[in-house]
């Protein structure tokens, strides 16, 4: 279809990513326009620089074949695990996560957050493991390898601690298993102890969930030991959760509590969510106008250039601006699903879908938190939130997708109608 040195560019996908990045940089610029100027005023310049670097990186990656990427998977993954391990000893905090150890610094200069790149290497590694077998894992035991691949860096990141990135890993794990063909019933069984953990605080809710689970186990008929393991894991989770709660750091307890009821703490943790809702809600149909958001200008909106950047979109550009942004994401995701579906091999397909899973989890979690639909975990919005590492990582992902797209079956093949 294309020559060995030629890459047929998936223009719609790249265009969507470029428009999203420029939209994002514009909003980062606006986020800096406050009545009392802060350092954020210049953030858009750095963001533009990272966008440019990302384009270069994406171009470079797109020159590498899927086989080269697959070949690099294991070293990249091992390197990632080692760097994350190192961070636990030498990591630095910054910005909203000042008390965590997510930053890699050399000689006091922060280079970036390796966990952003780790998302991609984990996707690659998981794809490699899942692609190795022709059949999708069909029992809990067969899931041990994928679980380990995600589990090790996940543990390292949770120890930083970075709950938000941890959630993204979970999202990647489940969505890629789905794409690999794992039965949904099995996925539910795997996820069930976590659900029990969350529901453990309400006995009747947990009881209902437990009965549902029992029904599922009887219907799905897993191996006996699997059934026993899942049920007992749920029981333990249900019992242990309240005890675990007491060991949770107060700020995380607070974040969970505020998720359940933001007005319970209007001046501290809940303040972010309430001010974000005020900003978005006061935007209306068309918003207060680009750079004119009062919530942002007067510093009521916290983290307006990073975690809560979507609130600036909502306040200044209104429901129309929100719809445009979500439509762009939707279109991008549609193109990535298309790439995954048309990929030439299962590894490429899984990588493509894994990258989608990464972005998707980010978008849903980040956008949802601005309206208090999801807990405030502080993960960035792809292409929007100020932050070099993730912008760069996202563009590397675009590069990989472009390559996979060009190696995949063309539209003419017609086997998959998407």
């Amino acid at each position, binding site marked *: 279809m294309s020559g060995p040195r030629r890459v047929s560019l998936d223009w719609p996908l790249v265009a969507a990513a470029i428009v999203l990045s420029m939209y994002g940089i514009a909003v980062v610029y606006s986020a800096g326009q406050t009545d009392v100027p802060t350092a954020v005023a210049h953030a858009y310049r750095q963001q533009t620089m990272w966008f440019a670097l990302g384009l270069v990186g994406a171009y470079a990656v797109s020159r590498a074949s899927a086989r080269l990427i697959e070949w690099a998977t294991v070293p990249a993954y091992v390197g990632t695990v080692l760097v994350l391990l190192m961070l636990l000893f030498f990591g630095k905090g910054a910005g909203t996560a000042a008390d965590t150890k997510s930053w890699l610094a050399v000689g006091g200069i922060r280079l970036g957050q390796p966990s952003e790149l780790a998302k991609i290497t984990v996707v690659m590694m998981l794809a490699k493991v899942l692609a190795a077998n022709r059949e999708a894992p069909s029992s809990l035991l067969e899931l041990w390898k994928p679980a380990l691949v995600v589990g090790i860096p996940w543990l390292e990141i949770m120890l930083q601690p970075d709950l938000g990135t941890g959630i993204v890993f979970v999202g990647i794990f489940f969505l890629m298993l789905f794409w690999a063909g794992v039965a949904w019933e099995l996925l539910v069984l795997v996820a069930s102890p976590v659900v029990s953990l969350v529901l453990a605080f309400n006995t009747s809710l947990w009881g209902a969930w437990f009965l549902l689970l029992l029904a599922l186990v009887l219907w799905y008929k897993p191996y006996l030991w699997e059934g026993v393991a899942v049920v007992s894991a749920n029981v333990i989770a249900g019992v242990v959760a309240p005890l675990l709660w007491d060991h949770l750091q107060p700020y995380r307890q607070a974040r969970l509590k505020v998720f359940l009821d933001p007005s319970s703490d209007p001046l501290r943790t809940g303040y972010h969510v309430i001010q974000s809702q005020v900003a978005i809600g006061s935007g*209306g149909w068309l918003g207060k106008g680009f750079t004119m958001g009062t919530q942002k200008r*007067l510093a009521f909106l916290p983290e307006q250039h990073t975690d809560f950047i979507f609130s600036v979109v909502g306040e200044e550009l209104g429901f129309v601006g*929100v*719809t445009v942004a979500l439509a762009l994401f*939707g279109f991008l995701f*549609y193109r990535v*699903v298309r790439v*995954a579906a048309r990929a030439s091999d299962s590894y490429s397909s899984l990588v493509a879908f894994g990258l989608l899973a990464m972005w998707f989890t980010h978008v849903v979690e980040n956008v949802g938190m601005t309206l208090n639909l999801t807990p405030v975990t502080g993960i960035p919005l792809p292409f929007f939130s100020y932050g070099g590492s993730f912008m760069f990582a996202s563009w590397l992902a675009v590069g990989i997708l472009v390559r996979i797209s060009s190696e995949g079956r063309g539209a003419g093949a017609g086997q*998959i109608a998407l």
Partner: protein
Amino acid sequence: MSFHPNEVARRARVALGLIGLAFGVLLAAFFRTQVIRNQQWSLRSEENRLREVPLPAPRGNIFDRTGKIIAENVVGYTVSILPQSLDSLKGTLRRVATLVPLSKGEMDAALRRYNRSPVRPTVILPDASFDEISVLEEHRIDLPNLIIQSSPKRFYPEGGDVAAFVGTIGEVSDSELTLPAYAGYKPGQLVGKQGLEREYETQLRGREGSRFVEVDARGRVVRDVGARADLQPQQGKPLYTNIDLDLQEYIAHVFGDSLTGGAVAIEPRTGAVLALYSAPSWDPNQFVGGVSVAYYDSLLNDTRAPLYNKATQGTYPPGSTWKLATSVIGLEDSLVSMDAHMPQPCTGRYLYGNRYWRCHDLNGHGNLNLAEAIEKSCDIYFYQLGLKIGLSRLIAGGLKLGFFDPSGIDLPEDNAPRFPNRLQYFDQKYGPRGWTQGATVMNMSIGQGENAQTVINMAKFYTALAENGVEATPQIAARPPELHRIFTLSDDQLASLRAALVGVVQAGGTAASAQIQGVVLAGKTGTAQTGIRRNGVELNHAWFAGFAPADDPKIVVVVMIQFGGEGPRAARVASSIIGHYLKSSVTSLVETGG
């Protein structure tokens, strides 16, 4: 085959469905927040950024009868803080204190204001000087939540001369805020505290306006949004009074620094209060914007009690000025006539019970009729008249003539006199056997005993004497007169009563020295015994109550000089007041006529 194209296509559809569902939920949530609940969140956003800064309304001006200003507003400055918290307020106060003098008391007051109303800007300097403003403006950048605004400041051009009736204003107190009358008030607002300022508060206060400042999340004032047209402050309505400022100032001048007491001048036909003065006075301007501790202490430590209104609050035995009441009661009940003599002529003393009752003239006045007894103020005559009237009738008559009730003047400081309203009063006070009707009625008939009147209430009674039994309620504000007939006498009786009062100030009368050239003055002196002695001499209150001109009364004047000695002294003060008024009013008539 997990990657069979059909399987992949199915999963792709599921994936797209999942993405569509998630985005659908998000869009629905944004639609609800941004479109459906937009108004609610917009309001929150406005509340976030806009802080209301009250704009105090100028109070209504107070004018005298000729349009001269008694109370007005001048430009003042207030300094307030928009605090985020008590701590930030304390911090700002400390910083302000390094720039301008700020006493501990002022700081405490600011903290108290904040605690009462954290939403309103906390006033820290209610009346800042221009120098203080200049210094604070210079350091504006260090004090971002400071609000400096010009606001109307109450000013009384005549100061202490008018304090007795105009009163003053001050910050509404915690206890006042709990009262229903102050329902609409907010902490930190100014209210009338005394006098007309308090009496006519609702008329004078006006309507507070608002402007808005935009603040950022730290409470720093970012910009002034200004006042909405419908939220401009509205000045209170003016108050037009009956006061004759020229006469008022003259009375203040006559009293000077040495005399202590009260004086009232009333137009008898209408009850219009021309002047009302209490000496020594105090400066109401000192109370605007918070009185200094030093000044307040100096007033409290003054033994002459300047803050106690001697014209409306202080009650004093009226002495002989009350003999006219005794006469009216006797005449109205036909127990005496103007030319009636009493059984015993005055020999300077009178035996009743087991003791001698003295007359003020120990040489005796001889055999007098009522007219002469009034002229000479003969105690012996009135002892006997009192006994003839009897205590019950005297008390009933006193009640009818208004000696039990407050005067009704439009001032909050209108104290009730001390006067018995029934015989049981004495039983309760002295025990059934602790008093005798005879001695009591004798004392009361000469204005002593259980009888202490305010100056204003005596003036009210004398309006009835001047106006043939029709009493006028004293009124400072220009209002329709309130007139009541309190006694009815025949024309002959009235004429000879008036003649007797004129006789007081004629040669041979007790106040002969109080004559005014060309004016016929009618009045009665009083020397009220207090029982208080200093250096062996009893300290008496000197009274004079009278009106002029006698045949066509234009002014009733009552003067009481506390511990002022003999009545004639008060009579001289009163006659100079009347003389000043009648001359000046004649002059002004000529001017308007010409």
